[in-house]
């Protein structure tokens, strides 16, 4: 039976050749490490979010009167609804962490350099989209935490003269966060963002496969240092087979990812749910200490520290632009960051600053 199906596919799509060229004879560089698997883990995380999100969508009601209640029903009435909701909530945090780690490792390996500028930019946009996913999804449970965190975040554009108020009103659909905001964020979360992210994933994967996987810079042979004056696929004839070598590595890390997710659900189920996440939204009652999620804490703390709101927001926008367009700022050919002390210093300093601000934001 299996043979028949295989033969049927062989005739129609040339299955054997496809497996040979794309898996068993497709070579990945020697010295490739587990950080190279983070891309596939991020993709798996996104698929997990889509699947769990689909089940949540069946029972969730995007309406201020029913949103909080419907989420509570998912948690307590729907069979295994708690599992899907916790997988979705914990998964969103883990997905941000994985995408961030992926970007960090790509930066550290210098894999953003010519000819991979577009791969980096598409990845950077996907990180921003992931954060927008989190922001829009955060409001949907319509809890005190989600309501007031969204109120704070949507007030940030008001720092800009002239257009700021307009942007905030457009995001909220009025002066304050309301049912209209909920509908806007819901539509963004379940339609526009998934479509955009899928498009970018397609572009990103196409670029990775078209250009070839970049070898780690630390033990590169002379061949790799050939100048990119015309398009060529970066081959690794002396490397390992994508299947089984690299696929095994990917599967191994994927299992670790899901094991970590279920560890958090099992032993730290309230890690991402402070008390205000369990209280219905009340626009007349401001909670004492509202803080954004961990991945926004550094930006939040930075805004608190800079006395001028416009300056703070402008610096953040400028840093984001520099981050997205980084391959065009760093045009030196040397990929090994260990041979570039100034870049290494900036990298480490940025990392320490981000971690420091995050911790400060959490405990301030």
């Amino acid at each position: 039976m299996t043979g028949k199906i295989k033969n049927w596919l062989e005739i129609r799509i040339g299955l054997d050749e496809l497996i040979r060229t794309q898996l068993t004879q497709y070579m990945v560089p020697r010295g490739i490490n587990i950080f190279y698997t983070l891309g596939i883990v991020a993709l798996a995380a996104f698929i997990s979010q889509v699947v769990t999100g689909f089940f949540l969508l069946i029972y969730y009601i995007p309406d201020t009167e029913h949103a909080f209640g419907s989420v509570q029903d998912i948690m307590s009435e729907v069979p295994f609804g708690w599992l899907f909701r916790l997988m979705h909530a914990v998964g969103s945090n883990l997905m941000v962490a994985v995408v961030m780690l992926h970007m960090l490792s790509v930066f550290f390996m210098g894999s953003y350099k010519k000819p991979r500028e577009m791969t980096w930019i598409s990845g950077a946009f996907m990180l921003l989209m992931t954060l927008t996913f989190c922001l829009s999804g955060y409001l949907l449970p319509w809890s005190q935490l989600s309501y007031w965190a969204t109120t704070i975040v949507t007030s940030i554009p008001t720092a800009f003269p002239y257009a700021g108020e307009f942007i905030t009103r457009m995001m909220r659909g009025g002066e304050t966060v309301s049912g209209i905001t909920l509908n806007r964020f819901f539509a963004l979360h379940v339609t526009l963002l998934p479509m955009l992210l899928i498009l970018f994933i397609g572009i990103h994967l196409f670029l990775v496969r078209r250009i070839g996987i970049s070898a780690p810079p630390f033990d590169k042979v002379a061949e790799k240092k050939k100048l990119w004056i015309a398009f060529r696929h970066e081959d690794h004839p002396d490397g390992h087979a994508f299947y089984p070598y690299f696929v095994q590595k990917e599967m191994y890390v994927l299992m670790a990812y899901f094991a970590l997710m279920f560890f958090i659900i099992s032993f730290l189920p309230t890690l991402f749910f402070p008390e205000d996440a369990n209280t219905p939204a009340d626009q007349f009652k401001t909670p004492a200490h509202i803080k954004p999620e961990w991945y926004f804490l550094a930006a939040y703390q930075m805004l608190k520290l800079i006395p001028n709101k416009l300056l703070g927001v402008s610096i953040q926008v400028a840093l984001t632009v520099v981050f997205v367009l980084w391959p065009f700022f760093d045009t030196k050919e040397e990929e090994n960051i260990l041979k570039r002390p100034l870049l290494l210093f900036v990298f480490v300093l940025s990392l320490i600053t981000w971690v420091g601000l995050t911790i400060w934001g959490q405990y301030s």
Partner: protein
Amino acid sequence: MRYLLWLLIISLMVFICAPLPSLGLEDTAARSTACLDCHDSEMMEPAFRDIPADWKKSWHFQNNVSCHDCHGGDPTDAAMAMSPERGFAGKPEYSGVPEFCGKCHIGILKNYLESGHGKALKASQSGPNCVTCHGSHGIQKANINIIDEKRCSQCHTYERAKAMKQALFATEKKIRDVRDSLRELKAAGVFTEEEEKTIFNTEAEFRTLFHSVDVSLIKDRSDGFVKKLEQIEAREKSVFRELEFRKNFSAFLMLVFIGLGAVIFLLSKT
């Protein structure tokens, strides 16, 4: 490139070293009112100046009951805050205190007025009112320890009060246990609003009964309260069992993925 790196470093240093506070993003402080502004100021008579501090430590403060909720007036308009036109009632007469508090604590007022305490106040204008036992601005959440020898002996012997306290003890303990479990469930991320409402109503009804100061009535009705509390307790136990199941189920899934990871690792070694 070099200039850009310096720009980046300077940007980072700006927000590391930038002087303090804040954007006003945290719109979180307790909102000030005209009442608090005046009573906190140096111009206020010393006797009235401690009121805001006492109130901020009170059970009323924790439950968002502010000055104007009891005393009326307009807390948003300093000039008219104490105007009778805006419903300002001021400080009640001693004998008017039960009606003053009873605007909110309706059931308790009824039981109090029918009790020995209420009748004494009505007859002599000097019997115990709400403030005698509970205090005023610094009022704390009521519990049976308010019934103590020192307080009760101000007016009469402690024997009768002691008998009443003993009759209340079992139910009071049950309320405390059920509340502790609810708090535990809430900390575990369970939405407990319905149970909290039920226990709030049961407790309020029970507290109302206190004020009748009628030992036999309390003994007669205690079983009813205990039954209600046991129903909540049963629901709590079932939620605890569900949480335990969730923990075990997701731990099982975790082990499945660890096992799969181990299998893949072993396969890669072969």
